[in-house]
């Protein structure tokens, strides 16, 4: 990897770190300027993150979404970009403290555990040269971004609930948005963004597999885990309607759903084997 790519990567990494710090301080101190600077630093981070992806596109000559490094860079982008858009829409800056650090941690994983060779762009093996793969990964990125956010909102919900229960009127819990609002935002993130896009991601993946191998579904562990994640979120949506599973249960399901997302992405590569193994490094 060239110095310019490295520079952009570490700059993005550092900016997410600073933004996380600002948001976490905002959580503790609740000075509005902290949230505001956190927001603008996140905007800067998303800008350099985008630049890093564009640079990789120029160097590799294809959409940079085919090896682990590229996908993680896109994953952090998906999380932070979803956050920025949702922040404009819902105005809950406190969520920044729960979401932006997830983007930072993902890049921290790259910085600490990925060697330069596996970060470098590599020639694409023939099966990966497909537009369907691009759509597959873009939809995954946005879906995962929304799921990461709903996870953050679920954690906020549980925190808020415990603050209410213990009757605290000061401290972080007291300043979080109302439980109803958090519950509703978490639901919309899953219903309007995450779940439909995960569906599209699985379908475009199946179409790609059909073109590449003549099999739209092969029960490969990664495919299977994406289906498991999908079933968990489908259960979440249905439980909400029939049993009125809102509140605590919904928050826990959003958290479990995101764990399944993370396992699909990391766990499958490290604990299980299958077709997607070429995306290992």
């Amino acid at each position: 990897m060239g110095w310019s790519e490295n520079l952009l990567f570490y700059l993005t990494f550092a900016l997410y770190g600073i933004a996380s710090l600002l948001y976490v301080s905002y959580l503790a101190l609740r000075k509005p300027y902290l949230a505001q600077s956190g927001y603008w630093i996140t905007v800067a981070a998303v800008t350099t993150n985008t630049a890093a992806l564009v640079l990789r596109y120029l160097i590799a000559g294809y959409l940079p979404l085919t090896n682990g490094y590229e996908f993680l860079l896109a994953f952090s982008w998906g999380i932070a970009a979803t956050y920025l858009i949702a922040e404009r829409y819902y105005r809950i800056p406190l969520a920044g403290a729960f979401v932006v650090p997830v983007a930072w941690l993902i890049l921290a994983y790259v910085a600490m555990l990925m060697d330069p060779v596996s970060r470098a762009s590599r020639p694409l093996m023939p099966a990966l040269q497909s537009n369907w793969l691009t759509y597959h990964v873009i939809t995954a990125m946005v879906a995962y971004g929304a799921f990461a956010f709903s996870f953050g909102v679920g954690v906020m919900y549980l925190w808020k609930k415990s603050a209410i229960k213990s009757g605290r009127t000061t401290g972080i819990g007291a300043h979080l948005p109302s439980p109803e609002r958090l519950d509703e935002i978490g639901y919309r993130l899953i219903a309007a963004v995450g779940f439909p896009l995960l569906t599209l991601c699985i379908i475009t993946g199946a179409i790609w597999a059909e073109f590449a191998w003549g099999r739209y579904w092969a029960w490969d562990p990664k495919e299977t885990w994406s289906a498991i994640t999908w079933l968990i979120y489908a259960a979440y949506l249905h439980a909400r309607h029939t049993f009125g599973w809102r509140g605590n249960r919904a928050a826990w399901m959003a958290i479990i759903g995101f764990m399944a997302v993370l396992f699909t992405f990391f766990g499958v590569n490290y604990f299980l084997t299958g077709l997607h193994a070429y995306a290992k490094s």
Partner: protein
Amino acid sequence: MSNQTWTDRAWNFFSSMKLGLILLLVIAVAAIAGTVIPQNQPPQAYGSSYELYDALGLTDMYHTWWFLVLLALLSMNLLVCSVHRFGALQRQFSALPAAKKAEDLRSLATKATSVQPGSVDAVAATIATRWQQAGYRVQRQSDGETQLIAADKGRWGIWGSLITHLGMLVLLAGAVVSTYMSTEDQAPLEVGQQVALSELGGLLGAPSNVAIQVKDFKTIYREDGTIQDWLSTLTVLKDGQEQLTQTIEVNQPLYYEGYKFYQAFYGANMVTHVTGPNGESRDVRLEEGEAVQVPGTKLAVMLYRYVPDFDPAIAPQTKSNEPNNPRVIYVVYEGMKQIDVGAAQIGVPETLPGGATLGIVSHRPYTGLLIRQDPGVNIVWLGCAILLVGMGLSFYLPYRRIWAAIEPKGAQATIAWAGISPKNKVAFVDEFHRLTETKPDVAKENDDGLE
């Protein structure tokens, strides 16, 4: 309950969402087991637990009877539940929401009140027009002195979940067709060779008068020597007549009457002739990476790689994709130790250490085709399309209802407003205040009128 017939009970059982939820979660858990236990491995891989695993179907879990029963139950559930809900959805879709009086509106979550100058009629007319312009279906009626308005929007969204479920059913049906009716086989074919589809044992029921012939096969290398793609030019013959000629590559199969031909693998047959120092010789057919023992010696020769345009300066990379100087790079081993490397020309014998010779008589690349016929695929794509339409309706066209009750108060009118949009509350609250020209209640800001 006891006077229910068994059909009633079965109907209730299958239309229950509780069953649906349990099935979704049980299938998820079963699917997890299938990713943890390696699937379709030879018995040794499971060790002493093989018998148990085999009896429970855990070695091929996704095709085992109980997994299929779970999917069948889910399909029954989806079907019965859809039929069960159809009538109610139809009624909700066709009928306008019932008018509500001011006191009924107070019990709804999103509500407001306001006072406007003008007669009840004039105010009601303005509201009705405004809502119509916003795309609402509006109904106005009088209740004594009071005017009641009820309106709704996004009613196509009502069908979203039902359409999603039908899509899921079609998808599952397609998957069943794929599982039980698809056939496939593989064929390595050298340039010029052909094979009738019926000769491939895996393609049950394939026509015997259709054959596939390889006209050309090429490997495309990049400058750095890695493989970019494989191109096979294929001709489909029917009764010996050419029907279609097309070049396929990875991700671009050829389609012919329900059969798909995929570029799946590749290789080359190299007829190799080795002679030991004692004159004893051996003829074998090798592929890249395979080795032959040199008779009468401790040596073995491994054919490492075929290079179409050999140049010693960049070997083992090739200078171009054209066979300008075809060579086969070979490695001579003594035990595990490499003792020599060379680049043999096709048809020209090479002398090996110790006086043996190696001749590569011919190099004939073959393309590896995967041929598949799967009548379920298009059913699955149709199911996916229906599923996506349903989800689009469900999630992006939320059904919403809004009411106003307008009462006279001197020369003015007092208005009680309320609205519901169960699937998109936050965005609806904004829309509600725009439609009613009211402001959100600041004291209640914190919960935004959500219950």
